[in-house]
């Protein structure tokens, strides 16, 4: 039983990072109907940025994270601007276009930071807490708290601000939104910037949990995407639930099947998605595909 809870806690913590990645996927998708396959690579860039400012420039971890978010936000603007001609037109081409961006980002990271990768020490060095005999790393709690705060802020933005409401409107019907005077292009750009910033947040948080390398984006992106779909693509609560579900699934698969954890995770994911394509919460917007 103790092992069970230990595995669960580890899974939830990694799942919180997947949830942040999934949130970025869902935010972009619900606003502009685009699946950004380069999202995982943006996470990777964010992880490198944050670790560079934290380790090399010796900035505080929080500040390093904010700078990383700003840089990836800029990358988000560029991706959105280049692919704008395809928006609301050819879905599959756009998807492939973002894969192209992902390839470029991975190569750029290899050029700048080398192919070997680096380990990032935890910014909160305290000893693990002991809760009823289960050891909980303090950093795991930090990750959970930040992920929860980011989600709450995003929800507030979408539901309480005029700009957020405009983005919701674009998500429902971009033509009607244009008709009432919403700048759809700007709305899409904001979604992309927010998504990319969330990616950097996820990246900087995952640095101390995993090893930072140019290829980390592939797996993180695919698992985050799987989380978003499992929860119900385009749904904010779905992204959180799905991301954590994938994290827990991953953690138990690693515990029981060791090296084969990825095989098990993706087989289970495939079966779940075939049984229920709309995910836990159902797709929020009408199927745009």
């Amino acid at each position, binding site marked *: 039983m103790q092992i069970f809870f230990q595995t669960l806690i580890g899974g939830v913590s990694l799942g919180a990072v997947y949830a942040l990645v999934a949130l970025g996927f869902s935010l972009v998708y619900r606003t502009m109907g685009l699946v950004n396959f380069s999202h995982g690579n943006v996470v990777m860039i964010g992880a490198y940025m944050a670790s560079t400012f934290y380790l090399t420039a010796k900035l505080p971890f929080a500040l390093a994270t904010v700078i990383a978010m700003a840089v990836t936000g800029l990358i988000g603007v560029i991706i959105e601007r*280049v*692919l704008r001609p395809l928006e609301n037109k050819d879905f599959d081409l756009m998807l492939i276009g973002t894969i192209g961006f992902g390839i470029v980002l991975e190569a750029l990271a290899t050029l700048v930071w080398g192919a070997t990768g680096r380990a990032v020490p935890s910014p909160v060095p305290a000893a693990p807490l002991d809760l009823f005999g289960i050891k909980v790393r303090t950093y795991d709690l930090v990750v959970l708290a930040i992920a929860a705060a980011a989600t709450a802020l995003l929800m507030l933005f979408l539901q309480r601000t005029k700009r957020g409401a405009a983005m919701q409107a674009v998500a429902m019907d971009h033509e009607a939104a244009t008709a009432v005077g919403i700048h759809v292009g700007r709305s899409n750009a904001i979604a992309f910037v927010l998504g990319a910033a969330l990616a950097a947040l996820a990246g900087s948080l995952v640095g101390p949990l995993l090893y930072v390398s140019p290829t980390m984006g592939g797996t993180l992106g695919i698992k985050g995407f799987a989380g978003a779909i499992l929860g119900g693509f385009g749904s904010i609560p779905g992204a959180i639930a799905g991301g954590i579900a994938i994290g827990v699934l991953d953690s138990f698969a690693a515990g029981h099947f060791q090296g084969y954890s990825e095989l098990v995770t993706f087989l289970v994911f495939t079966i779940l998605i075939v049984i229920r*394509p709309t995910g836990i919460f159902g797709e929020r917007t009408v199927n745009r595909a």
Partner: protein
Amino acid sequence: MRTRATALRAGGLLILAVIGWLLPYQLDSYSIHVVDVMIVFALLAIGLGLAMGIAGQINLAQVAFFGVAAYATAILTTKAGYGFWTSAILALAAAAAFGLVVGLPALRIQSHYLGIVTLGLALAFTNWATNATITGGAEGISGIAGPILPGIDLSSEYLYYYLELIVFAIALAFGLFVVHTPLGRRMRAMRDDALAAGAIGAEVPALRMTAFLLASVYGGLAGVLYAGLIRYVAPETFSIANMFFLLAMVIIGGRQSLVGCVVGAAGLTLVRELLADYPTYAQIAYGTVVVLTVVFAPTGLAGIPARLRSTASRLGWTRQPAAAGTAALGPFEPYTAAQPVDSDTRRTEPILAIDNIDMSFRGLQALRGVQLTVAPGEIRGIVGPNGSGKTTLFNVISGLYKPTGGTVHVSGRNLTGASSHRLARVGIARTFQNLRLFGQLTVRDNILVALDDTRTYQAWRYLLWPFGIWRHDRNLRTAADEILTRYGLAAFGDALPGALPYGIQRRAEIARAMARRPRLLLLDEPAAGLNGEETRQLSEIVRSIRATGVTVIVIEHNMSLVMSLCERITVLAGGTVIAEGTPAEVAQAPQVIEAYLGDSDLSHDVPAPVPTEIAS
């Protein structure tokens, strides 16, 4: 003209064959190795092009099909002691089986969902190959036995080239044959519009599986040849990075053209080889080219000649062909022989009997207890205000929706909830309110898809009796030309539907539906957007179609057309039938006047833009 083009093409092929045959004499031992690898990638790219470009199935597991066959060859030759050729056949079977398993999710999900699932399964395969003992783990398997042919030393990469060349030529020719004959045409139709493809009898689920089967067999061929060439397999060859490299080949070359895929594969393999010392820069280069291709040249290298041609004709450099804009819609030639299609059935039995149909979408009840009985040979009108459930009713009849209650009988057979392609085979054809012609297929191809009645399982004939397929295709083409002429569309056979005026597209859609030789034709607002003369022609066409014994049900807002054309009219309002009878009876029914004409704004005279009533 035609013979000259054929002669040119044959000459070009001959030259290519000679170049292919003489190529090894010009190359050193390293270059021939690069060419050998290039051919393997070209085979992979053809498979990916068939799945993605032709059938529209996002397949990010192509590299795993490649891997399954390569590993199967390696394991069977080194561990089980089979010879290369036996192993090759078993490996191909393994790849095909794996392809069918990976394709299964495509029956339920499409587009980006399919992308992530296939990518996940590809990762699962690499994960297995890296960890299992039978695959040799991360070290892989070396010492694979190569192929042996009496009298030919295939361990020489020069002679291996000829083996690859022959396999490649056959594989490419077979792929092109599939694309340009009924099976490939149906897959392209499914890619453009899966719903409309089902409605004209294409078995969409079987076609999706066929697409994955083809992709995996091509991947398998590549895997077997790779194992025989390199004699060593390791997990990194089948990584996601190589999957994306393969995707780049297909996108840059042009995914909808198999030749384009081959060119893309050859080009990218060469570039990677030239930049072998700078792999990271090569990666940046091909990633950038993918993005640029997607934005500026979505049809890839293969699409460039067509784009140049259209630019040239726009600038007036070449003579304008008598196509699209200039030619006029020809007159309709009425059907002559008025033979009833189903003379054997008792004429009293209704061709369509709908009993107590309910249809609701998450709480919204679109149809409530609808009754409708249509006698053979009748022209039935269905009218009603917008949102009264007319198109929903059509979608239930043609199998796009499964009703939540009630039954549908066609000529006495209970076909409630049958799939749209099954209903199409029973003899129901339809047109769509918002026009659903296959956008990337010419008007002739649109008709050809509808004409073809072979089942997907008969595709085995492609392997065993291609000549029969070829003859069948030739017969279809003759029939298509007849239909094009009958509907006055002869001048537009080679045009893409999107380039044609609205009235011509409407006519083409009726022609496509009639190419099915249906017993029951459903027309959804056929006069919408037509001018007075076109509407008059439409009325003539519908009467002529009925004269051949086809029953016609028509949804229409143009009241004068409905009143003059239909023998009986059913009026829907709020999802229920509120009146039925002859035009005169219906026009005088008080409940109709209240629901329909009683509206102060006379809603039927204002053709408001109707939102798509068919979920996509």
